[in-house]
């Protein structure tokens, strides 16, 4: 029961919900960049919320099914095809032995998710199947790799109503919680941060997303290193924000103005460079309420 990689790509890796319990040992959280598309991919197949998927960045990969199974593809539209014919996304699909799955090039968004019924059965390293290239944990998929998956005994044909499928081409507003050194930034600094359109730059990967815009004047450039939360926003020495993402180091020493709400980070994961971006304050109460609703729906619990 497996897929075989027929053609390598820029960056396709196995990811699950993440390596949540090893920050103490200096490890990144890792895991999928777009939790929304990921959660749907597993949900469409009645998988467990933490089942491993393939995160395909910008496309290019070609896979061949070695047995019949069910899959779901969500996230970016990377020109997903089965046997050279455009195939449905956000939909549970049956595929057959010998079927060739391809993602040729990005049309809308950045990262697509391929979930398979029962989840991919790749190696668990430090309590997670997530690959982290920076930490030399696992490797990206290359031609010849074999991706095993589990057995299953139940079929599903779930799909999502098209009105719930996100459009990844729009500019975005990220809701951000006042955390860390928020109160150390002056009113003027905060005004500048919240009242401008930033632009997503090319320096934008699984570790972090660097923004361009009008720099904030910084009084304290470096501080004592402290634990990093997924989505916290460092203001670097040049006065510009860096949003720290799934593969960010566990500790860091730049002042942080806040932490972006996780489900807005899922939207960020699908934005290409040059997209305009704004920040808007969000309360912890609101964030926890919305996230709890999401977790309940997708049965995410630890």
């Amino acid at each position: 029961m497996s897929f075989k990689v027929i053609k390598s790509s820029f960056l396709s890796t196995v990811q699950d919900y993440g390596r949540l319990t090893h920050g103490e040992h200096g490890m990144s959280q890792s895991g999928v960049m777009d939790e929304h598309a990921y959660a749907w991919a597993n949900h469409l197949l009645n998988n467990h919320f933490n089942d491993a998927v393939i995160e395909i960045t910008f496309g290019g990969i070609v896979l061949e099914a070695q047995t019949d199974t069910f899959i779901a593809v969500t996230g970016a539209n990377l020109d997903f095809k089965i046997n050279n014919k455009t195939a449905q996304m956000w939909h549970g699909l049956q595929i057959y032995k010998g079927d060739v799955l391809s993602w040729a090039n990005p049309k809308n968004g950045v990262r697509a998710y391929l979930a398979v019924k029962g989840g991919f059965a790749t190696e668990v390293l430090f309590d997670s199947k997530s690959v982290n290239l920076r930490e030399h944990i696992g490797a990206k998929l290359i031609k010849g790799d074999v991706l095993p998956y589990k057995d299953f005994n139940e079929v599903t044909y779930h799909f999502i109503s098209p009105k719930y499928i996100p459009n990844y081409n729009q500019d975005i507003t990220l809701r951000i919680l006042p955390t860390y050194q928020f109160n150390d930034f002056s009113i003027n600094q905060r005004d500048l941060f919240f009242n401008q359109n930033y632009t997503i730059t090319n320096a934008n990967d699984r570790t972090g997303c660097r923004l361009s815009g009008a720099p904030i004047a910084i009084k304290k450039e470096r501080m004592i290193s402290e634990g990093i939360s997924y989505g916290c926003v460092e203001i670097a020495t040049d006065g510009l924000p860096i949003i720290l993402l799934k593969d960010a180091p566990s500790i860091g020493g730049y002042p942080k103005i806040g932490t972006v709400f996780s489900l807005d980070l899922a939207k960020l994961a699908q934005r290409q460079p040059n997209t305009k971006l704004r920040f808007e304050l969000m309360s912890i109460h609101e964030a926890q309420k919305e996230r709890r609703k999401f977790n309940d729906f997708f049965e995410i619990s630890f």
Partner: protein
Amino acid sequence: MNNIVSAGENAILVYFGNEINAALPKKIGNFANQLKNTLSDVVIDVIPSYTSLHVSYDLNKINFQAFFDKVESLLDQQDSNNSILESQTTHIPVYYGLDVGLDLERLLAEKNLDLMSFIEIHTSQAYLIYAIGFSPAFAFLGEVDERIQLPRLPTPRIKIPAGSVGIAEGQTAIYPADSSGGWNIVGRTLLDLSLNNPENIHKFRVGDKVKFYSITRDEYLSNGGML
């Protein structure tokens, strides 16, 4: 007095002081341990660092205010708990040689030291583990004697071999894996800290100590050391 701030929708940061202080790592390490034991149903992960402890929790089970209150009350009774961990000291062999210590020659010249004196200074104390981060099992050790302190390189090296021992101002550390980095490299250890052995992530713990000892080039090479 401790100060607790929010660090995100499911995380808080507990500060134990404003300045780096040798008394803090042990205290923070112990509190991390206590927190994991006492609130194991809601605590997901802890990240101790120089003056703070980052704690993530399960927002499905507890909200911010309730978690904040629990942590605060635990801090109040901190001294009366019995989960204090004993400090351990790990002894680590290092070959201090110009062929592996990429910056050693420059350091000796700038500091006007001979190699024997440098080794004597670097190996004379047990260093405290202040934080673990940057990469897995990378332990920040301090405080380095002023006589051998040097700032980071202006331009980081693209590749520093695994096992390299470096100095950056008041800190010293071992690179667990091949990586880029800007520390001044003064030697190399045979000790494997890579993730090839999953147990290696447990080698260092904030609040514990590390003491280096010098081995000869022959000892280094005959035990599998690479140049």
